[in-house]
């Protein structure tokens, strides 16, 4: 049993912390609040030290590190609410692409793209199917094959980063059930309508009209692809959420220690202190299950049921902790906490977004296998 980081992980964390901290001055973030909360400069800085390719294989120009190490960077990203959508691009996008095309027919097809993703030249996102498993999904994309060419038609809304991504992998229904397709977002037949998410980040509504696409997986392989994407994404979000929650608790502690009312710091009132204690306990529970998910993904891989289950558990915890922690920390701040001149609001908005994106607690609990 071991809950400590390796020396390499500590170094990588320090590097990530430095870069995120340097790029998240209040002045800088205020500019980005109005322009889709994405920092090109930060993206390039991360690219220049190889962090965008951290978990991609060395064969593609990545650093070949394990998920646990990627989780360290994601946690720091959450800690600063850094304006780069690493979960959507590095994990749902690039890492999923790498994992799911290993030893498959599509491996050769995606190799050049993976190289460009590792270097940060290209940016990839993913249009996963909705996390809730209902009999009918109102919105969908259909794939049709004519001769050897596939085209996609249909609509997918709120696809993270679709406004700025070069590529996306998309799930679609086809003659053989589900298919996973690689879409060039600049191709004909692809219209991306920019949408703004609650955090201020942009997303895209994909309107596809016979858009040409490459088949990556079909049938059972496609279902496995989605399962892998979810496992990796949930675990990644849990790591991000751990950083965000920890920072919110710290912010709440600092604020209430300094804020004086009735002649004393409000932290001395138990009603206040106990809310923060509860927020701390929630954060530590999240940290614990997030570590379990990252560890299992690193040692067992993303296929075994135990790794998948750990990721799902971690995402449910993330949804709960993000909700409770952000509300309690906002509560102890009072009005000062919602003022946009104070940094907490970005955490609160990002927390709400991360709670719901890829499935919240009610969506995911029914998917946990108990029996």
């Amino acid at each position: 049993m071991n809950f400590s980081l390796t020396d390499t992980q500590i170094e990588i964390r320090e590097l990530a912390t430095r870069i995120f901290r340097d790029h998240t001055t209040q002045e800088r973030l205020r500019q980005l609040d109005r322009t889709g909360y994405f920092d090109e400069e930060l993206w390039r800085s991360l690219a220049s030290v190889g962090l965008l390719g951290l978990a991609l294989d060395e064969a593609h120009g990545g650093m070949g590190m394990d998920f646990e190490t990627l989780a360290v960077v994601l946690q720091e990203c959450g800690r600063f609410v850094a304006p780069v959508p690493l979960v959507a691009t590095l994990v749902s996008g690039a890492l999923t692409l790498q994992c799911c095309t290993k030893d498959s027919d599509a491996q050769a097809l995606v190799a050049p793209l993976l190289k460009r993703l590792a270097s940060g030249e290209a940016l990839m996102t993913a249009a996963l199917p909705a996390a809730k498993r209902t009999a009918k999904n109102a919105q969908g994309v259909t794939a049709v094959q004519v001769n050897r060419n596939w085209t996609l038609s249909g609509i997918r809304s709120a696809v993270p980063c679709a406004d700025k991504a070069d590529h996306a992998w998309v799930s679609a229904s086809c003659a053989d059930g589900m298919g996973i397709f690689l879409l060039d977002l600049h191709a004909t037949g692809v219209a991306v309508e920019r949408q703004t998410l609650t955090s201020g980040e942009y997303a895209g509504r994909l309107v596809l009209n016979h858009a040409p696409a490459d088949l990556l997986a079909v049938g059972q392989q496609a279902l496995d692809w989605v399962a892998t994407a979810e496992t990796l994404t949930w675990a990644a979000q849990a790591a991000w959420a751990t950083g965000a929650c920890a920072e919110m608790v710290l912010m709440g502690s600092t604020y209430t220690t300094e804020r004086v009312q009735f002649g004393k710091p409000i932290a001395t009132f138990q009603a206040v202190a106990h809310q923060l204690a509860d927020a701390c306990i929630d954060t530590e529970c999240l940290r614990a299950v997030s570590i379990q998910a990252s560890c299992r993904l690193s040692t067992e891989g993303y296929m075994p049921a135990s790794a998948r289950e750990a990721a799902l558990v971690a995402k449910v915890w993330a949804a709960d902790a993000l909700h409770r922690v952000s509300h309690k920390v906002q509560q102890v701040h009072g009005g000062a906490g919602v003022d946009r001149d104070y940094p907490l609001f970005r955490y609160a908005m990002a927390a709400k977004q991360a709670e719901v994106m890829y499935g919240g607690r009610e969506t995911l609990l029914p998917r946990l296998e108990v029996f």
Partner: protein
Amino acid sequence: MQTDLSPEHLDFQQSVRAYMAQSIMTPDFSAELQRPEFNHGGGPVYWQKMRQLGADGWIRLSWPKELGGGGADAVQQYLLVNEAKRAGVPWPSLSANSIGPVLANHAQPAIRDRVVREILDGESYLAIGYSEPSAGSDLANLRTRAEKVDGGWCINGQKIWTSCANFSQYIWLAARTDPDPSLRHKGLSVFLVPTDTPGYSCTPIHTMGVGTNATYYQDVFVPDTHLVGELHRGWPLITGQLNLERLALVSHGHVARIYDETLELLLGDERFRHLLDEPWVRRSMAEAKVKLEALKLMCFRAAWIIQEGGSGMVEASATKVFGSELYVELGRSMGEILGTASLLSDGPEVLAEGYVERWYRRGTVHTFGGGANELQRNIVAQAGLKLPR
């Protein structure tokens, strides 16, 4: 990092599990434990089993090597207590894991070797005499007095919630030795009081759940040799072992038990199998599982921190709050699934020999026993988050 048990720890866990199930929780012991006067132990089968635990080396397992023990690390200690509680064994954690080693380190040589041997052989048990009618959470307010007399001390006072005193050979007693009560915790000392000492008496307290005791000290004389540690310096002895004890109170195996019982009934009992098709049942079970996973890892992490030399104070307190509240919540959600049958304490169709019904009546103490959750939250806030007092 590694959050799953290592092969060595897994082997250990399995061997403890098997031993508890096969050698300790035999039907006769199970039956005896259900009798109210023997809930915590003290019956004839209990003593047989304690001696067996002693003879088989389990009690000494958790003691440091330098005290003649097995030197089990904190994770192993946690696993040992966890498996025992999972099996429903009234594991003698005070003597085996907490007070026993403190006594071995701080008791005077004249009594130490004899008492230690008795404990390790499973012949003697200790009960804790801390709380009093006017000193619960505010323990430093305690009033039981020990006055210096010729050759020893004369003790007068009363203790409450002295669980297991009715069958223990010794009371581990906190008393005020400095007459100035304003010194609070700085004027306290710890004594080992044999329960056959004249002036000592014990009366049962019947609670909604388990039985416990009040103990009375009327001019109880103990020789000088029975002072443990330094005079007026009892407080560190009292607080020293608290962190591992808190984990033991809410160990995963113990809190998960009602979930395990419910799962077994849903899967294997005709009366309940149809509920597997109900979405609300599946959801309740999923939610319980999600929370129990967190408790499992919180316990492991706290034990690991203690093993690595940290105090684990904040982690143990956080885990105690979470685990105790989860215990109560699971009683409610699992009880709903099991329905009216969960209310039966006796008669046909009783579930798990009454274990399910007892959960609520025995369980409400978890959030205030072993350190009230309000105080645990204070520890998280002050020691963990550095909030000012």
